[in-house]
């Protein structure tokens, strides 16, 4: 066990790399859902993006071409979903599941010749001047281009939704498709485009895994990231800034997991303190925001804080009781992202008290009369 071997710089850098695929896929799905469409096929579109990007990059020798191919591949697959749900009025939930099943199978099918192949390396693109800053430079500004692209996309999507007419129409279609239709907007067209965008973004996210994060091709390479991206959209209440936060939270968890594993530190040794630290941070933010807006509600804030501290202490006890058994720890480490997703979903759903703040038409089929 060697906690000291974990470098904060390397941790932050790996956090950004681990977060990028989730961020890309979640942003795309958020746009799809804002148009009122629930596409559960993210995992399938991601893995198709992963193999398309990989295969095209290997064949063309260019990772950039690979990423373009991944976006096209993801978007093409998503068109199957678009045809089913927008033109044949199929229910969205099973159609999304079907998309994932087809995508996973197809990817493994296409990928067979590429097992063991090496993709072209993707160079770093340090940002001039900023990369020189001590600590922050190597942590934040010495990444590959896709990391920056994903952050720029977050900004662009936020601006699109907030300031542009296109964004307004997209939101309108997601809020009330009958009204949008009555006003003459092409609900179906808007939705098909949103689905395609979601597919392209998922494709990019998948290719980021196969070309940069891993980088190689194996079956099932996305390993559930697409589903986590779906959960992040819910967690983020369909807002771009929060999608970024959620994706980085999960990326951070994954990075932490890898770093701890490398340093051979039991998760249960660190986790309790992290949870309690999160509680303190939460309290600080809540107090600051509350006193700024003059709406500090003391009781629930303290209750949430107490829950954080309580869960931290409970985890501490579990660790001591099991004497940091390596088997249990391995299980916890490897399942951490999935368990964390469930926790996050429960917390966010309990907060909204049953009333979804998602688009009103989410998952509903539209038919012009």
């Amino acid at each position: 066990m060697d906690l000291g071997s974990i470098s904060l710089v390397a941790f932050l850098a790996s956090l950004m790399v681990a977060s990028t695929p989730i961020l890309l896929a979640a942003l795309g799905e958020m746009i799809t859902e804002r148009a009122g469409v629930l596409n559960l096929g993210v995992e399938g579109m991601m893995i198709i993006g992963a193999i398309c990007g990989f295969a095209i990059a290997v064949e063309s020798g260019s990772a950039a071409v690979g990423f373009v191919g991944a976006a096209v591949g993801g978007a093409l697959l998503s068109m199957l979903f678009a045809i089913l749900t927008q033109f044949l009025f199929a229910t969205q939930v099973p159609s999304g599941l079907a998309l994932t099943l087809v995508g996973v199978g197809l990817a493994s099918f296409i990928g067979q010749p590429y097992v063991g192949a090496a993709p072209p390396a993707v160079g770093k693109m340090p940002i001039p001047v900023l990369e020189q800053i001590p600590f922050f430079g190597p942590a934040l500004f010495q990444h590959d281009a896709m990391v920056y692209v994903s952050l720029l996309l977050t900004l662009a999507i936020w601006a699109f939704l907030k300031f542009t007419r296109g964004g307004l129409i997209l939101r309108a279609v997601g809020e009330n498709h009958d009204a949008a239709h009555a006003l003459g907007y092409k609900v179906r067209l808007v939705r098909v485009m949103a689905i395609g965008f979601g597919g392209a973004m998922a494709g990019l996210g998948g290719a980021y895994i196969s070309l940069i994060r891993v980088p190689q091709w194996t079956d099932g390479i996305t390993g559930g990231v697409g589903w986590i991206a779906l959960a992040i959209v819910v967690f983020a209440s369909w807002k771009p800034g929060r999608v970024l936060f959620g994706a980085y939270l999960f990326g951070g968890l994954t990075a932490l997991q890898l770093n701890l594993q490398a340093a051979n530190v039991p998760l249960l040794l660190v986790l309790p303190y992290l949870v309690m630290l999160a509680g303190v941070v939460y309290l600080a933010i809540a107090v600051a925001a509350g006193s700024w807006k003059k709406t500090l509600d003391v009781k629930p804030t303290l209750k949430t804080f107490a829950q954080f501290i309580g869960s931290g202490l409970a985890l501490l006890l579990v660790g001591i009781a099991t004497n940091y058994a390596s088997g249990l720890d391995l299980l916890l480490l490897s399942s951490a992202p999935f368990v964390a997703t469930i926790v996050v979903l429960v917390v966010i759903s309990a907060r909204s008290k049953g009333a979804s703040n998602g688009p009103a038409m989410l998952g509903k089929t539209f038919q012009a009369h």
Partner: protein
Amino acid sequence: MTELLKLQGLTKAYPGVIANDDVGFEIAKGEVHALLGENGAGKSTLVKMIYGLTKPDSGTMTLHGETYVPTSPQAARAAGVAMVFQHFSLFEALNVAENVALGMENPPKMKDLAKSIREVSENYGLPLDPDRTVGDLSAGERQRVEIIRCLLQDPKLLIMDEPTSVLTPQEVEILFKTLRQLQSEGTSILYISHKLEEIRSLCDEATILRLGKVVGTCDPKATSARDMAELMVGETLHIPTRDAKPSGAELLSVKDIEFAPQNPFGTRLKNLSLTVKAGEVLGIGGVAGNGQDELLSVLSGEARAQSGSVTLEGKEVSKLGPNARRKLGLLTAPEERLGHAAAPNMSLIENTALTAIIRKKLSKNNFINWSKTESFAKEIIKTYDVRTPSAAAAARSLSGGNLQKFVIGREVMQDPKVLVVNQPTWGVDASAAASIRQALLDLAANGAAVICISQDLDELMEISDHFAALNEGRLSAPRLAKGLTVDEIGLMMGGADGASKAEPEAEPETMGASA
């Protein structure tokens, strides 16, 4: 006056039905033209063609003397045709300015738009705050959003589809003032309604549609409401007869309900109380969205108000679910026929089981007796003249009126002690509406208590013994329906008659005598 829009030979067929058959008439500049007809007469199809939402199979339209073929609502708006919808085409989660922008071709910057919304709305006496979220607005305010959206585009023809169904009489006056102002500025208005008195007071000419055909035109100011009604319906109406009835014991009593609905845009019920007695029909009026759905749901048991608030025959039922209340004799029929009162894809037999299992004892040891259910379904169909090929037909295959007869019949034939109905004749043709009202009256005559929530004031005046109105989740004190004036009703609907300073309820004896 010169002609603005001319329709000639417009025909539109849908499989199995000709919605419009050779329809033609003219609208002059600055004219308020009424389009009259029952539900299903083809009014909305006609309007959709004018607004570019559907294309006619044949026929022509000319606007300003030029051929007018709108391919989309955008094209219609560009040509100067604007429309205020009956079911609002608004987005609840967006704010007023965003909603307005969505209805415009080239909206200005949000800041400028907000300014012009303020200006125009003040000018026409319809004040509106551009930053408010539409979901938080009342029905009347929402209609303003639609109207302002149209006015900002300086329309030559404004189409209004049943605009007053969501307004109090006082709000109707304000709307009419606005419309007359527009008319004086040279805007033509196509006014769709089935409310004859309104049309008589507002419109210059009326075209009457029946079964997709023009059956007449008239000057509404010079034609009696009765003549127009007969043109519209095509038959003499059976008007329900109200038997004098004795009033009995108090059956249902609701005391100080405080209820916050789950839906963030729903209406909170505040301090709501009422009682109904055996043999009584209590009519509850009010503009849509003032707590009608919420009131029905706390009475049906789908939602629960605080304990002690609902009492049936002296028994506390406020925490009971729908089936426990059915067992005790409290039945309900909600407004939404498809998807609430009935499951659309299920057969009438299955839809009978939906509410009738308990009172009609259609199950044994939790196994449903389908043959017994079927015979009860057939009984409903026969008694209430529900037109359907068979009891096995899906609910969604029935016309609105027939399904409504089925839904009301299903509850009435279970012999309820108290029946609560919401909008029992909404969208139902006149003869079906008459038979539904008669069924409610017969039920009361046989000693049940009936609460009828409706937005159709004529209907309420026709069948109610007592009348009360919902306004923003509060219920006015019930008053004897007989002798109420339109002004008084308007004040009750507007909330001026506070529930708190309720005048003493008429004594049962007086009530019996007055009916």
